[in-house]
């Protein structure tokens, strides 16, 4: 007993080897941890600096920076309700149009499409995410906006009895909430579709078989067994899409019309938080309060997207619970615009 113990302890020092040989392992371990800490601290530092730069505008205007409706550079007054409203309207339109199409696409690809055609079609949908936002903006300004103007006019006249749609008639401008929202819908489509596909793939086959064995048609099977199961994950995907839409800058600044007022209907021009920063940054260089107001707009934007993303991730992780790989894959897919397929 005693003898064996001494043998083991004797071996022990031999097993440990020289401290030198263990050094790289320790260095790597602590080095990598330190790197992760550093990145988190850096983010925190950025956030604090952003608050600092926004301080002037926020302390001067208080809550009316978000709720007051008077953004006037010439009078140096920055009440940004029009920006917040513009951001919400355009991303709302993006969700209304983009999410149904994205989910339908995902359903088609996972439940109906022949297996051979699936990868190619999925890749094409994913490629929408590869188009840079400035190119969407370019296309929106010179093609989509002008081409849709008569359609919008007809629509506004025909459905003029619906609030927020009619009333514009002749005053429809090429850049407006609707065009910006439509561009955003196209931009969030690949992300929402990629996440929906990941989530739909986790629906257990036995649930689908149960529905079919009851005599359900394919659509009834989707409604009965697939959609209820996938709902939280799809909701999360839609929220991540919303986060993207809220934060999108260049495509929106080119298509929303850039008028710091609250539009009367969806074909009216407006402004968004991100757009105002990109558009007025140059002229704000020599006006500290204006600049501070733009930083404050950035801060508000940052906080809104943060909240939306946190909620989204909660939904996505609930939708793919028990499948860490799937959840990570879904988010990875978001990040790279659909590398999952």
């Amino acid at each position, binding site marked *: 007993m005693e003898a064996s113990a001494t043998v083991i302890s004797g071996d022990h020092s031999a097993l440990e080897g020289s401290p030198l040989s263990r050094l790289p392992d320790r260095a790597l371990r602590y080095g990598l941890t330190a790197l992760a800490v550093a990145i988190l601290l850096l983010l925190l530092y950025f956030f604090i600096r952003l608050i600092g730069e926004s301080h002037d505008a926020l302390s001067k205007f208080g809550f009316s920076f978000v709720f007051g409706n008077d953004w006037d550079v010439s009078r140096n007054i920055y009440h940004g309700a029009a920006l917040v409203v513009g951001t919400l309207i355009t991303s709302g339109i993006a969700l209304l149009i983009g999410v149904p199409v994205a989910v339908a696409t995902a359903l088609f690809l996972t439940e109906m499409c022949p297996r051979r055609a699936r990868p190619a079609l999925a890749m094409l949908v994913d490629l929408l995410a590869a188009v840079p936002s400035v190119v969407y903006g370019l296309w929106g300004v010179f093609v989509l906006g002008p081409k849709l103007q008569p359609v919008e006019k007809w629509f506004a006249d025909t459905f003029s009895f619906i609030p927020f749609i009619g009333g514009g008639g002749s005053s429809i401008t090429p850049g407006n909430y609707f065009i910006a929202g439509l561009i955003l819908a196209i931009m969030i489509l690949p992300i929402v579709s990629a996440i929906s596909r990941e989530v739909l793939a986790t629906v257990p086959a036995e649930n*689908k*078989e149960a*529905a079919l*064995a009851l*005599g359900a048609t394919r659509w009834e099977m989707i409604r009965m067994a697939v959609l209820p*199961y996938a709902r939280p994950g799809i909701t999360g995907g839609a929220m991540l899409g919303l986060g993207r839409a809220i934060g999108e800058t260049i495509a929106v600044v080119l298509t929303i019309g850039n008028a710091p007022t609250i539009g009367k209907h969806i074909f009216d021009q407006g402004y968004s938080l991100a757009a105002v920063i990109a558009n007025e940054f140059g002229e704000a260089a020599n006006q500290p309060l204006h600049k501070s107001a733009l930083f404050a707009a950035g801060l508000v934007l940052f906080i809104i997207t943060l909240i939306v993303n946190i909620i989204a991730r909660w939904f996505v992780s609930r939708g793919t619970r028990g499948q860490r790989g799937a959840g990570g894959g879904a988010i990875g897919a978001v990040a790279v615009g659909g590398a999952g397929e």
Partner: protein
Amino acid sequence: MIPPETTSKESDAKMSTAEGRSEQTDATPDRAALGARQGKGHSVLVKDLHAYYGQVHAVKGIDINFSPGEVTAIIGPSGCGKSTMVRCINRMHEEIPGARSEGEVKLDTLDVYDAGVDITAVRRLIGMVFQKPNPFPTMSIFDNVAAGLRLTGSRGDNLRERVHKALRAVGLWGEVKNRLSSAGGGLSGGQQQRLCIARTIAVEPEVILMDEPCSALDPVATLKVEELIDELKQRYTIVIVTHNMQQAGRVADSTVFMLDGEVIEHAPTEKLFTTPDDERTERYVTGKFG
């Protein structure tokens, strides 16, 4: 928390007609709820059936006649094609990507694979219970049983009545009547499987296919399901796939032994287990291989 289904007048009336029935009888399959068979039931005729998974030939030309109103067990070693064969009967086989089948399956005189036959109607007529209990996880107990009925537009009192009847028929009523609106996934494995059987019989099929329905259950739950099968045969033609020979012996009127995608022997259960004609059957049932 009383679910709305049981508070309505209609179900109160139902309960009072069933008064005097104790919890004990509530928990056993209710033959009255099952309903009587009309006529002598329906036969299933499988003729020269072949099934494939891509290049793999899983079922190689099978002929079986499933007698009306009987329980037929399919036994055989794993991979012998017994599940595949059964899934061909209600055309679930073709749902697997790359899978296809050839040959004839007839329900009485109706050709199940006829081009003019609606696949959803076939599956409604030939219900299926799966190996793993698969209640819809997002639905309540009530909604699970109602799922198939709702497809055909059944609603209101009629729906409620048929759901309750199906739950009585599988002997689950006593256990779940106070929590019909809670999730089906919260039941035990055996209860879940009986819930799935209730879901299947709620739509009143003529034939029930069971693909190893007890393999995921403990012995007590297995016994309950076997008792239930015994009751169900009053009303339905039943085909049950099992890898458990004792189970086949207990529940089946006749038994089919399959090997390598072919039928080796089809005989009354007792004969197949005691005096089989084929030497391979004998070796299998005596446990020499498998």
